[in-house]
């Protein structure tokens, strides 16, 4: 029962905090560009304003275009329920299987790209394809890293993997560090940040499918995309950096878990933000080469694991 309560609370908390996280990101970028930048709460104002605007869909579009924003947001909420955040183990264990998470992330990606084609706009379409290609290039590395981590921990459940790694009882710590690094890089590409992507700029990039959205639908997609970023980072934290999260479900442990989780989240987003603003965009074609490098690191970890180092 308490688990269900935790799941609901953490999901609501996440929804409430998401615009703040994206707002802080925008604020930091502005500071690093030595601009004044928007206020930290700007994304709350944006969402509220968008919600009052007209919801425009192109004349050739179908129900797919209308369904995508709620579907994207809804899927992220399902993921948020099962992701261990304050706790070490997942509050809803049947939602925390790593393979389920990878494939559940494909559901909104499928509709995201589909809605881009549905709009009939070529800019949206190009963006949609790129979104899919990112998935194609990143998923093998992600799977290999998780394969090694799961087998070292003896489970494919995010919570159990985190518990094993968190108790420092894993057989091959070096291997875990290597695959954790590979997984972190793969997650970073998934976040849709520079140098691969700039979620709120060029139309042919991830923003592309959004170019034909407006009003409440656009608000929902923006919300869902930020939520996805936080969830991907939480996923990484839950498996590879679970230290400090609540092992026992007492109020004190949960409170500590919450604080530690927020600190970890802030730290990782800070590092990502610094990195993002320190690099320039690479051409899309180069993404393939760099993901091969990530895959190489994962293979390295895999070989280490087989050799039993």
């Amino acid at each position: 029962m308490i688990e269900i309560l935790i799941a609901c609370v953490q999901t609501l908390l996440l929804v409430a905090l998401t615009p703040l996280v994206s707002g802080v990101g925008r604020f930091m970028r502005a500071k690093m560009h030595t601009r004044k930048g928007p206020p930290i709460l700007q994304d709350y104002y944006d969402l509220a304003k968008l919600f009052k605007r007209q919801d425009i869909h192109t004349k050739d579009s179908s129900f797919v275009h209308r369904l995508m924003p709620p579907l994207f947001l809804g899927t992220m909420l399902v993921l948020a329920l099962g992701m261990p955040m304050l706790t070490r183990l997942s509050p809803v264990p049947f939602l925390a299987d790593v393979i389920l998470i990878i494939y559940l992330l494909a559901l909104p990606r499928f509709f995201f790209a589909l809605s881009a084609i549905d709009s009939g706009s070529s800019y949206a379409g190009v963006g949609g394809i790129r979104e899919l290609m990112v998935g194609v290039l990143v998923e093998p590395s992600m799977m290999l890293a998780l394969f090694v981590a799961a087998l070292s921990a003896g489970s494919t459940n995010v919570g159990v993997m985190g518990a094993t790694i968190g108790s420092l009882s894993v057989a091959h710590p070096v291997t875990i560090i290597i695959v954790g690094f590979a997984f972190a890089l793969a997650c970073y590409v998934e976040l849709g940040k520079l140098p691969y992507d700039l979620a709120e700029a060029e139309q042919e990039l991830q923003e592309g499918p959004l170019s034909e959205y407006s009003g409440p639908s656009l608000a929902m997609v923006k919300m869902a995309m930020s939520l996805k970023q936080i969830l991907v980072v939480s996923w990484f934290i839950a498996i590879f950096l679970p230290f400090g999260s609540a092992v026992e479900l007492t109020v004190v442990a949960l409170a500590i878990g919450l604080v530690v989780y927020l600190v970890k989240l802030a730290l990782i987003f800070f590092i990502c933000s610094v990195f993002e603003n320190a690099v320039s965009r690479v051409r899309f074609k180069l993404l393939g080469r760099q993901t091969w490098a990530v895959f190489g690191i994962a293979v390295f970890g895999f070989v280490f694991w087989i050799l039993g180092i």
Partner: protein
Amino acid sequence: MDILNLSIPSIFSLSAILSVVGALLALVTGRSEGLSKGLASVFGILASCAMLGVGVGSLLGSASLISIPTPFAFASFSLLFNPLAGLLLVVINLLAILAWIYGTSYLAEYKGKGIGPIGFFMNLFVVSMNFVVTVDNAFWFLVFFELMSLSSYFLVIIEQDEKSTKGGFLYLIMAHVGFMMIMIAFFIMAGITGSFEFEVFRNTPFVPAIASVIFLLTFLGFGCKAGMVPFHSWLPQAHPAAPSHVSALMSGGMIKIGVFGIVKIGLDVLAASGCELWWGILVLTIGAISSVLGVAYALAEHDIKRLLAYHSVENIGIILLGVGIGFIGIALEQPLIAALGLMAGMYHLLNHAVFKALLFLGAGAVLYSTHTRDMEKMGGLIRAMPVTAMCFLLGSLAISAIPPLNGFVSEWFTYQALFDAAFRGDAVIQLFAGFAAVSLALTGALAVTCFVKAYGVTFLGASRSDAARKAKEVPAPMKLSMVVLAFVCVLLGVGAPLVAPLMQTVASTTLAVGPVAVAHNTLVVNPEMGSIISTPLLAVLLIGLILVPLLIRMVFARGGVDSTKEPWACGYQHEAGMSMIATSFGADVQMFMRPLYRLRSVVSHQATRLVVLFERATKGAEAAETQGIQDDRYLADSTGAFVDWLGHQAKKIEGGNYRVYLVYIVVALLVFLSMSVLAY
């Protein structure tokens, strides 16, 4: 249960008789196409309904072996009804019923092209498949296997244009290359045991070297039928050429018989000989390669049926991953892993049959309305054909392994089996299991890309041709078949906690190992690593949490909705020519995965070479025949006279072009029969 077992063979014979009668009636009444179609369909549906009952009975019951003596002393007619055969019977006959229903409308496309022969060959095709999966005698197995290949060959070339005859010919050659290998393997076993009974093979431990040769021959032979890489080249040529409901039956049903053969021979018939580790690793590796290459080639296609045919290669690969783990588990003496692997394979076999049949029927519906298979000329069909579009969307999601649909559940089990094997195995197995898991991940991501393309370009956006603008929704029987299959896709996914134990029964009885607990209440479980998911609860949560924002938008958004505008297109003047087409998708993938495509030209070049070689061989045979000595000429002449006589008789019944087909079938069967009798 006794009553059930007693009645199974009688229902089976009843169904077989119904099929044959239906086939003959379709032929006799061929002149009035409506009557012929009606008779063939009614008898076909009745036969398949009966056989579906037999399938369900075999799936749920215990194995029963029936032997009926025949005039040939060496080939008594043995029928084995076990859960594995039951699963295949259910798959084949479920698809057959829906294909028949679909065909009642769809065959309007084939007016004047020989509806009589289609009814004849389809009945024959279904009944021969039913026999292949149930007979337990090597001789009869080969007879029905050949009948299945031939009847489907004639369905492929029904359109009689250059493309279909070429595709059909390649199919015929590949089918016979496979057939030869299987036959040799069976003759080796028959030579050693002195019997054609699988039951005798089953109880004979073969020397490891012999067992390996038999395994290899049957694996490659059945692999030709299954369409695994490198024997896949016939699929994208033969499947698109056949009428769509036949494609559904071939892609959903027939190629599974290839997998069935691999499982039956490798894991059941050779069980007494033990299993070498490298067998499993070979199956696993071929499976991984097939899955990645199949989907990569599918992405480059813009012919919707060729795209689907390549996806069959991919899914056969995924099924083989599970089957490979089955082999590895047996070799490692880890029955739990073996059962889980084989179970994943069988589950995916069932799932692929359902969603691939659905997609082929959907493609057929599009073809029916637009008269083109070229996706570049479609677009926006969702407005004209909403039911087809919804069904095709569900099929696309299922084949892309999107939770909570059925494709995801079986792929989840495949991953779990791979994880288990790596968990318990040594470094070599870890290496191959890791490779397979990565291939499966890559396959999954590429499949998503491919079906966003297939669905988006076909059904969404603006219509790109007059044909697409004038498209209409298909008639009710076609819709019915698709809706049923879409419903089954959802059911097999959301109902996983109920379906998984059934598949587990198929796997554990085939392997003769103890049962494995793969489900618990609403959960689906991997007992080895303790991983759990729950598709029913996931479905409820997804629907609920998608509805919440949907309702919030409906109730609280005050700005109103406008869906009359041209695309904004970043401020440029929008033109219809700007929208996405199928080629745009292939380009990006091909840029990132160039080596995969280079490999294809090498492989398909080899297949072409095989065809050329075969053509030369037949020419050479012809030349030799005309110069033959007296004895040979006698044989040739009498055969020729017989063929002429047979043709003459057939002509009396009806002057259609299928008399030639009939002669082909009879002659091929005769040649084969005499060959095996002589060899024996």
